[in-house]
């Protein structure tokens, strides 16, 4: 469903991605991990047709991400790390807006809206302006808005940001459910427990390079730690941070 070959993108500041090659199958829940600035969001933006790569090719749902952008956007859903929402629309109006843009039939639009509001436990907030929503509710309405047209591939940048444990569980269950029905999910997260619990495969990015890819079992074999948690694998591959002794609080506080 996603096929990437030699994808490279350089930025003047030095960050970017280098020669990425991997593929994600239909119905798979693929999690992209990496330290801050490793290139996760850049990869998602290239795969969703938002920025052009310097070199390499990528196809998503059979569409070339550089040449067939509009057709690609019709088949995918993308949720940014800090979701973009129209504050002056209600949650229901925003879902209607997104559904109409994707030309979802009216009946399906209304049915899916109701289902999503119920699933995300937002029925009472559906007719309130988005500007009144908490961070968790904003995250949920953003996720609902990218699900409403049933995209073949879903790109989610940190979808569990700001969610309470109950809502995070709802999101995990929904994503698992749609993957079991054939949708492909490509997501990034910093919460390794979530990745560990829900992913089929993991890709680990460091300084723009893919340092490991595979199922948890594959990764454990890669680092030769058969009982390792995803956190241990991640730190083994990306390097553990060492904190120097700080000069803070050397004198006592009152």
């Amino acid at each position: 469903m996603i096929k990437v070959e030699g994808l490279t993108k350089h930025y003047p500041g030095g960050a970017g991605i280098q020669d990425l090659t991997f593929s994600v199958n239909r119905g798979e829940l693929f999690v992209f991990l990496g330290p801050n600035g490793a290139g996760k969001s850049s990869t998602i933006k290239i795969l969703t047709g938002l920025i052009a790569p310097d070199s390499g090719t990528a196809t998503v749902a059979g569409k070339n991400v550089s040449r067939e952008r509009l057709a690609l956007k019709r088949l995918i859903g993308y949720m940014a790390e800090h979701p973009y929402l129209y504050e002056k629309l209600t949650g229901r109006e925003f879902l209607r807006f997104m559904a109409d843009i994707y030309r979802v039939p009216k009946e399906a639009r209304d049915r899916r809206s109701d289902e999503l509001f119920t699933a995300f436990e937002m029925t009472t907030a559906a007719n309130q302006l988005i500007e009144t929503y908490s961070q968790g509710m904003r995250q949920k309405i953003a996720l609902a808005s990218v699900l409403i047209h049933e995209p073949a591939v879903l790109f989610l940048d940190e979808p569990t940001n700001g969610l309470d444990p109950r809502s995070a569980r709802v999101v995990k269950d929904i994503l698992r459910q749609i993957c079991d029905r054939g949708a492909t999910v490509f997501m990034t997260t910093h919460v390794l427990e979530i990745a560990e619990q829900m992913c089929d495969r993991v890709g680990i990015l460091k300084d723009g390079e893919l340092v490991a890819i595979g199922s948890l079992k594959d990764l454990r074999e890669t680092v030769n730690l058969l009982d390792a948690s995803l956190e241990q694998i991640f730190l083994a591959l990306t390097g553990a941070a060492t904190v120097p002794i700080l000069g803070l609080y050397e004198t006592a506080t009152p």
Partner: protein
Amino acid sequence: MTHSTLPARANVDEGLSRLGWTMVSAKVRAGRNQFTVTRRKSPVLSSLRFAVIVPVIVGFTALLTIGFASALSQVEERETATTIVAIAIALSIISAFVGSSTTALQALYLADDIPFLITLPIPLKVLFGTKFIEAAIGTAPSSMLMTAAVAGYGLAYSGSPLFWLVGLIALVGAAVMATAASVIVVSVVTRFIPPRRARVFLLSISLFVIALTMLGWRLLLPQPDKINLLVEGERFGRVWSALGWTPAGWTATALTESISGQLIVTLYLGFLLVITSGLAIALSFRVFQRTFIRSLSQTRNAQTAQPNESITTWLGRGANLLPRDIGSLVLKEWLVFSRDLRRLSGAVWPVGVVVMYTVLLAHGSGSAFGSGDLQFWSRNGSLALLPWGLSLGISVYAYGSEGRNIHLLRSLPVSARMIFAAKVIAAFVPVATISILAAVLSLWIRQAPLEQSVQLVALLIWMIAGYVLIDTAAAAFSPNFEASHIQRTIGMPGRFYSFALGSIFSLITLVGMTRLIFFGAKEPSRISGILHVELAGIEPFGWPLVVTAAVTGIGVLFVCAEVAIRQTANILASPN
């Protein structure tokens, strides 16, 4: 670890000026960094902006100064000159108040950094001081008038160094007093109206102040319809009795006395000006201090407003008439228009002008000339320009007002053509509704003949379509997605683009329409010969002129639309 010594903690009550300087310098640095980024992104545009804007401002002020100097040098009586300078200063202070009221609201209550700053150990005095300086920036454009009046007076009467010192104090004093008045009004208004809704209310107050000024102008000035400075001195008496006791009157008197070499009176009035400015700051701080926290907590109240269901339903029905994808974009715009008054705040001025214009037209006899058709058009033709102002207040913000949500549009399967069409349709409806209603009302009050009225409305629709399309194209030409203030969501090149293309379109339409009118009306004898010149058996200033104007007008709109669609495509493809 020993606990015998406590760390030296900053005493927040000390070093207020240092704290203030820290905040001001942080703002200056942020502005400088922003400028550096802009210059790096588009060096040519940045240089061009400076090369155009600075000479325009300096040139305009210089021209105004020369005008004042030349007019005042012809005034024989000193009292008349003082009154004229007082009028200029009073107008400058009023326009400074109007200019700084929204800036004060933005700086003191709506600025992005306010929620952050109130978490820091910054005394309210310092916060007020730095925000007062920010608010005072809003007085800058109007201070050009006062600068010109003072400098013109000084040049006309060879002002002494004392004159220029008093002039400088007066300039600062006027800015301070106008800003203080704005802060007081804003503080009182936000005490009752949540800050996010206060902008429109403040603009209404500004319009009211302008209307009062116009009324005062008509009542007090000797010849309100002709600004003639060379009228007899005694006829300015009524104006002086109205202005003499105000700061504008003291300032003008101080300037006159300094020219006459009356040191004591000059120093006394100068001192009075400084004291008044200080008192104005102190009073505005007291009002601000009493209302700030309560007003700020009201910001949240404005956000919990429930949408009006019947409006939403009607707007939805309107959008349903369009294809679904364009309809959804248009509906989104309309819902934002109806719920976010900030989005329409740019239109308050033009709407106010339209209302005043309608009232004036309804009561006045107009500047009618000729007979029949010509009389109708000379009296009512200017109604066709109403949508220009409205469009400048609505359409030019079509792109920049998306803010960071432009990234959402970029991720959706919508084409540049579709977005542009949706933006044009979304702006066309409110501009058309207000313009046509105002025009029809004016024509009805004046009992204009039906046939010509229908022709005028047809012309109006053509103008609405043209201006909305041109201004939406200008919005695409230089949007500013970073601005929090709606009126800054379009850059200067976009404003120029809008003004230049709007002027060309107006001129072309005027030429074509005038020729059309002359087919039915009696032509003035002066131009009759020209209109009927024949070249190879054809009258080029007859139908060919009308057709050429129509084709050129359509051509201008077509080019604008194509450029805008290309620009929209660039925005959608932009990596940033």
